[in-house]
């Protein structure tokens, strides 16, 4: 159902992942995940090592945070993060790169694992792993299947349907074995017999590579998927792979699925087999004007400006810098914001690429409705939201909108559909919360 075909522009798909040195100073936000922000366990002046836990997230939905560098805690203060708001972060001045004990740094593949499900889950939680595809939902919570529900499939998301981004693609090419082991560990934790890796057909090399590797692992298979956006959205991915529809307002577990990103599978491997917490991730830096489109393994907390510098510097004619993909990413107004666990890419648009076309009357062409992957009527939702007719918004299922941006992308009149829908969702969400007391 639905879907659009934005230009792919995967300029960095052949660039091998390049490890970046730690910057001079990092700002590590306490809220890098969905849920309750973590509580700092270090204070100003403390000496920390790379991989040391510096904040704990013990609420039901939260995640621990570790230092991505060694050095001295300068302060715990509010800094502007990618959302544009000031949020609390731990700022560390980097001194050398001394790692916490017990973390294995050799890159040799470690296949064997004798831990049981519970122990794997604990390790995932200890490592502070969150969904690496952008949703940043704490991973251990997803591995913990709620009572009364049963997981049948582990779905691994290697779709990377956002244009420009190549981080997952490179990871699949370069860390395929590790991803396989990570998937095995997750299967064990969940107690499922089958895992399916979904990859879009525009990455034939990754499909081939992982299919070959999967032959050696029981229950893991690879499935090539039609190229369309948003093929990698959780519900759409499940539908494409096993033809089940997650009901409105429900989670994938409702249809027996748990979905994790390939990046998350890799993080799980490192956490369980190497004892390494989530302190770095692959970030694509790309754009038509970028000198050296790249995929960097960057420490969490590295300022975006340092990544852009490493990719050849900010081009003169830059009009927009985006944190994430072109369809769902956020435009940044400050380039000092830190890379977080959910940062998949930094995209640079020229001045010409930046503006939206001018808005016109809706011509009722029905394109937005035809392509909406959730089967909604974006033109109607936008109208109702604009007029604040919230009850009607709710009846028309505004809360099902996943903000994929396809409607605004396709609209020939360039109506700011999603802008209105977002505001509407916030208001309807508030209304629902108030109603339920």
């Amino acid at each position: 159902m639905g879907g659009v075909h934005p230009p792919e522009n995967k300029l960095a798909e052949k660039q091998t992942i390049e490890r970046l040195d730690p910057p001079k100073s990092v700002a590590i936000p306490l809220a890098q995940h969905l849920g309750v922000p973590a509580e700092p366990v270090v204070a100003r002046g403390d000496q920390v090592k790379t991989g040391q836990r510096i904040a704990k997230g013990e609420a039901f939905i939260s995640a621990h945070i570790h230092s991505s560098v060694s050095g001295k805690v300068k302060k715990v203060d509010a800094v502007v993060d990618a959302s544009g708001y000031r949020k609390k972060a731990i700022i560390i001045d980097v001194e050398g790169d001394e790692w916490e004990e017990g973390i294995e740094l050799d890159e040799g593949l470690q296949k064997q694992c004798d831990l049981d499900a519970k122990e794997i889950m604990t390790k995932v939680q200890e490592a502070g792993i969150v969904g690496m595809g952008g949703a940043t939902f704490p991973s251990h919570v997803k591995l913990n299947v709620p009572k009364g529900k049963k997981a049948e499939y582990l779905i691994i998301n290697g779709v990377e349907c956002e244009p420009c981004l190549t981080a997952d693609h490179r990871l699949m090419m370069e860390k395929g074995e590790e991803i396989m082991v990570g998937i095995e560990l997750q299967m064990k934790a969940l107690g499922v017999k089958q895992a399916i890796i979904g990859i879009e057909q525009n990455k034939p090399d990754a499909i081939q590579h992982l299919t070959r590797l999967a032959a050696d692992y029981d229950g893991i298979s690879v499935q090539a998927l039609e190229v369309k956006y948003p093929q990698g959205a959780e519900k759409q991915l499940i539908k494409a792979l096993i033809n089940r529809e997650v009901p409105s307002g429900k989670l994938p577990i409702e249809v027996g699925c748990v979905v994790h990103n390939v990046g998350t599978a890799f993080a799980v491997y490192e956490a369980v087999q190497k004892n390494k917490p989530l302190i770095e991730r692959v970030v694509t830096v790309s754009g038509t004007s970028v000198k050296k489109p790249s995929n960097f393994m960057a420490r969490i907390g590295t300022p975006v400006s340092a990544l852009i510098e490493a990719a050849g510097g900010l081009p003169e004619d830059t009009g927009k810098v985006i944190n994430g993909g072109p369809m769902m990413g956020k435009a940044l107004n400050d380039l000092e914001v830190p890379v977080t666990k959910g940062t998949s890419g930094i995209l640079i648009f020229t001045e010409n690429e930046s503006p939206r076309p001018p808005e016109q009357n809706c011509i009722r062409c029905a394109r937005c409705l035809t392509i909406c992957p959730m089967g909604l009527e974006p033109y109607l939702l936008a109208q109702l939201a604009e007029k604040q007719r919230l009850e009607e918004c709710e009846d028309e299922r505004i809360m099902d909108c996943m903000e994929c941006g396809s409607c605004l992308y396709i609209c020939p009149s360039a109506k700011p559909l999603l802008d209105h829908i977002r505001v509407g969702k916030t208001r309807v969400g508030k209304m629902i919360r108030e109603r339920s007391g």
Partner: protein
Amino acid sequence: MKLLTVSGSPHYHAKESVSSLMYGVIFSLIPAMLVSFYFFGLPAILITLTAVVSCMFFEFIIQKYLIKGPVTIFDGSAIITGVLLAFNVPANLPLGLMVIGSAVAIGMGKMTFGGLGKNPFNPALVGRVFLMISFPVQMTTYPKPTAFTTQLTDVVTGPTPLTALKDGVTQGVPVSEIMTQLPEYGRLLIGNMGGSAGEISAIAIILGGIYMVIKKIISWHIPVTFIGSAAIFAALFWLINPEVYPDPVFQLLTGGLMLGAIYMATDYTTSPMAPWGMIIFGVGCGLLTMIIRFFGAYPEGVAFSILIMNAFVPLINRGFKPKRFGEEVKNG
């Protein structure tokens, strides 16, 4: 550092714009235009030009001096209204009437409601119906097609196949007999018959329709269901009594049914949004067309049936929603 643009996602926008879609429609109309120019010659060219220029002119005047808003006459929509209006009148219609028709189409049919996207009725049809009611004689005097003339005035005018049929049937002449005096289907298909300037060539219009569907300018729902339901309905009656009701092929090839189904009923603004809504709309148009042709006073039913269905669009949109994701849980 200079300021960065901060706008909400998405940061990409598809290349299609309102005008690129509209010009796509215009491009697809070229074959039909050429056929009409071939059979009706210079007058057809003149009438088309007059309609297009007047539609753009009236839109300009209204936008600039009455609404005092932005002028959008080059977005292509006024051109389409002009071409379709010209296609809907006899090629020898006096040009002055064409100007009046354009004024009504744009002024009454479109701009009073707030312009493109807001009008409930297809503007070209509003113009046509206005002309039909106000100038019935001129509107039903059809020239006989003659390849490449420059003059139609001294050409003998002839009835459209549908008028001939209606008159015949009313006088009690059996269809089989009337048919012998009408052009055979091969000629109907390419458009060699009396009729409005552009509605005559089914082949050219179907070609344009296929182009638009392939280019995703329109979807198949309305044309297919419109033509399909008209055909089925006509076939039923023909099977019951072929002496009073002509066969469905004849029905489909005449009276602008193709033009209506492919170009007029698919007008974005005045047709439903969701696929099932489009299907209901198409079926409604098809059935109404046949009912009017069989039982109405007019020989021709396409224009009225589409206008009637236009009026139901808000209701249809309310009743027929797209299939929501995750609505019915069918697993397995």
